């Protein structure tokens, strides 16, 4: 059992030491661990993580310390700089790795091994090391050396095949969705590996290989793409904003935005028809032919959609949302970011954490850290680190370097 003298359980995850060598395609893994209590140290090249060079920036003024992309994916981490392209830098890295519980990385699969700092090189000095590699196509197989960003992974996983309108090309989900599944599975694997190492008899460290392509395939399991092909010889397709089979199902315009509505059971249809009739007085909606469940209304899609649109234009989004729910119907607002920040449910359930940024231009803003609501544990709330902010603390304070040694490495551009 590990000794964490300071750990009293305020945060969910004990303060395991994690070295984070990921880029933005897997940075969410370290962030998840850091939010919940792990001591995650981002190891950046002296020029900084490449995402520091990506916007958006406050006021659109480029500044490596204020990339909102970097700030989002690296909350609650610490930062040290280290040049892994030099032998001296790699020597320092080996010392860090000898003491680490976890390393997470997203380099091309041979990058670390070619430099003598892959898992097989590091485990000798640290048999308890847990190391996770998150790559677009995994560490083995025909496509293991293929490269790709969000767009490529979304395509190759087939996730794009079912995103967008049926008569238009596939479209990517705009939140760079592929950055999350692989990172989340890696976090699960890392925690399970630590559990095994620390709480099982004879537990040791291990390597975890995560393919972002595979992870994203599991994120649309209910479409069952491979199974549909085997069973019916068909491919999954895009259905667009509105279903053509279940009516109404989708997003519909109302006074000040869009309402998402899903009416499936016969009882839900009857409740909706009654409400539409109350509002529009149009008797057509009570037509017996439209009653029934699930896909029974498909042949009447045009008339029912017209009836629904005529009805929806009488309401604001919030009116439809709350009145629909009061009538036991699945009506949900189509939110913009502004709506989320003002949403009373998120506010009251401890979802947003105010984080204060030292540098003036950002101030205090809200981060989404509260995925688990709990009376017993809370998330941490440190902003993403400035480049190399923890060099002194880590290299001198923890690794025991002398001031001279650190100064030399700095002078050589290694730190």
């Amino acid at each position, binding site marked *: 059992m590990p000794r964490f003298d300071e750990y009293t359980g305020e945060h969910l995850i004990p303060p395991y030491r994690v070295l984070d060598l990921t880029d933005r395609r897997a940075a969410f893994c370290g962030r998840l661990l850091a939010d919940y209590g792990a001591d995650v140290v981002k190891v950046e090249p002296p020029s900084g993580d490449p995402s520091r060079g990506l916007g958006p920036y406050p006021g659109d003024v480029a500044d490596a310390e204020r990339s909102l992309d970097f700030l*989002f994916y690296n909350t609650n981490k610490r930062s040290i700089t280290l040049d892994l392209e030099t032998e001296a830098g790699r020597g320092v890295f080996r010392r860090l790795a000898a003491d680490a519980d976890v390393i997470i990385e997203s380099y091309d699969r041979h990058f670390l091994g070619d430099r003598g700092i892959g898992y097989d090189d590091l485990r000798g000095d640290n048999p308890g090391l847990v190391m996770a590699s998150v790559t677009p196509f995994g560490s083995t197989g*025909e496509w293991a050396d293929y490269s790709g960003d969000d767009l490529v992974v979304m395509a190759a996983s087939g996730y794009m095949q079912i995103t967008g309108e049926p008569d238009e090309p*596939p479209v990517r989900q705009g939140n760079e969705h592929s950055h999350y599944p692989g990172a989340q599975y890696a976090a699960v694997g890392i925690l399970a590996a630590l559990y095994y190492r620390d709480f099982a008899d004879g537990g040791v460290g291990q390597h975890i290989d995560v393919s972002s392509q595979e992870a994203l395939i599991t994120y649309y399991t209910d479409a069952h793409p491979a199974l549909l092909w085997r069973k019916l010889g068909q491919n999954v397709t895009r259905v667009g904003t509105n279903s053509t089979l279940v009516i109404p199902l989708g997003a519909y315009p109302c006074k000040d935005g869009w309402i998402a509505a899903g009416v499936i059971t016969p009882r839900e249809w009857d409740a909706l028809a009654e409400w539409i009739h109350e509002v529009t007085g149009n008797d057509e909606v009570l037509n017996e032919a439209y009653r029934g469940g699930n896909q029974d209304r498909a042949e009447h899609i045009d008339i029912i959609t017209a009836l629904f649109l005529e009805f929806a234009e009488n309401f604001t989004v919030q009116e439809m949302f709350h009145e629909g729910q009061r009538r036991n119907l699945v009506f949900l607002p189509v939110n913009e970011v502004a709506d989320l920040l003002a949403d009373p449910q998120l506010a009251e359930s401890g979802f947003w954490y105010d984080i204060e940024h030292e540098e003036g231009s950002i101030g205090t803003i809200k981060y989404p850290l509260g995925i688990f609501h709990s009376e017993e544990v809370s998330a941490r709330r440190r902003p993403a680190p400035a480049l190399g902010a923890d060099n002194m603390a880590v290299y001198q304070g923890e690794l025991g370097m002398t001031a001279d040694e650190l100064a030399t490495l700095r002078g050589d551009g290694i730190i």
Partner: protein
Amino acid sequence: MTSANIEAPAALAGIRVVEFGPYVALPLTGRILGSLGAEVIKVETNKVLDEMSFIPAWSRGAGQPEYQRGKRRITLDVRTEAGRDLMLEMVRISDVFMTNFRRNVLDRWRIDFPEIRKQRPDAIIMWQTGLGGHGPYYTYKSFGILVQHLSGVSLMTGLPDEPPGVVNTSYSDYHTGVFQPAGIIAALMRRNLTGKTATLESSIFKSGVATGGPALLDYQVNGRDPQRRGNRDEWAAPHNVYPCAGEDRYIAIAVSDDEQWVRLRKAMGDPEWAVAAEYETRLGRRRNEDALDAGIAEWSRQHDPQALMEKLQAAGVPAGMVSQGRDLNENAHLKSREFYQDTQYWEAERGVKATEWTEGESVSWSIPAKMSETPIPFGKYSNIGEDNAYVFGQLLGMPDGEIERLEEAGVIY
């Protein structure tokens, strides 16, 4: 590095989990925990089948192995007094209780969280909710595909002035399903180290918003709504999907620097239009993106998507075919990683006891994390109620006759 040491016990060996609830996210959590070696006891009843056996309608349970492999599946009607007692007995021998039933339902069944705590003071409780278990929306209903609208993602997808962009799946159910095992394992570590227990409430809504990305900060700092850019990217060009030979076939190409552009140009055979000076720099390619995309599309549409992907990747150009089900099913790369594996299933039939359903052939993915020391088995696929004898007999020590009596009484059913 990737062959698990078959001598090693599974990572979560010795942990027992009670899974109580249907649909997508909760069963996914159970499948992951089961694959990592926890003993997951899934409590169901023949009287109320999980609707996912009929969604999509053609599947008739063929899709269930992807959610339910690697679990012990028992039938129990917890609405009966004897059923409720057995549920609580199981809680007493389990480390984790996880459910997605609403609070009023759990209260009605008297399987509420204070009762769970009373039976097993150190149980880790995971309570999965839709919009939240507290707060103004706690009674509100939601489901899968519509949460992408609620969580802000559909208005980040597609192009400005288009309707909200939709993916045809139960969007953030999957985020929740994979957040939860992380929370549970961490809570078990915390329990082992501090003796403290935890109740964690998750929500499908929050899971979707938590993965909204830097756009959540951009609005606060710059007052800017998310830019809907379709498949394009501010920092790269070309960056789009392009038509290929065949019906509804596309390839994604994402060129992030000038070197990759030269490689793509060469792969295209250096056509006259592409060697023009305006395409030499990223900024130039961004400025002339419509013409750039049209030029690439004219070339790509002559090629098979997979052959083109492999050609471009070999040339050092990030590219990915937009895979369809057939591609995934037959893909050599996924086969060599044993991602999809054959599985049996039982064809779901309403009104018929599951153990009397017909067996058939299906396919399921395996967990997308390969661990070098501890096994992540594909797992056994139990039918609903198949493990009644193991759980009630072996674990709870109930005599055979008693199990039969309770089956006939509709309690273990």
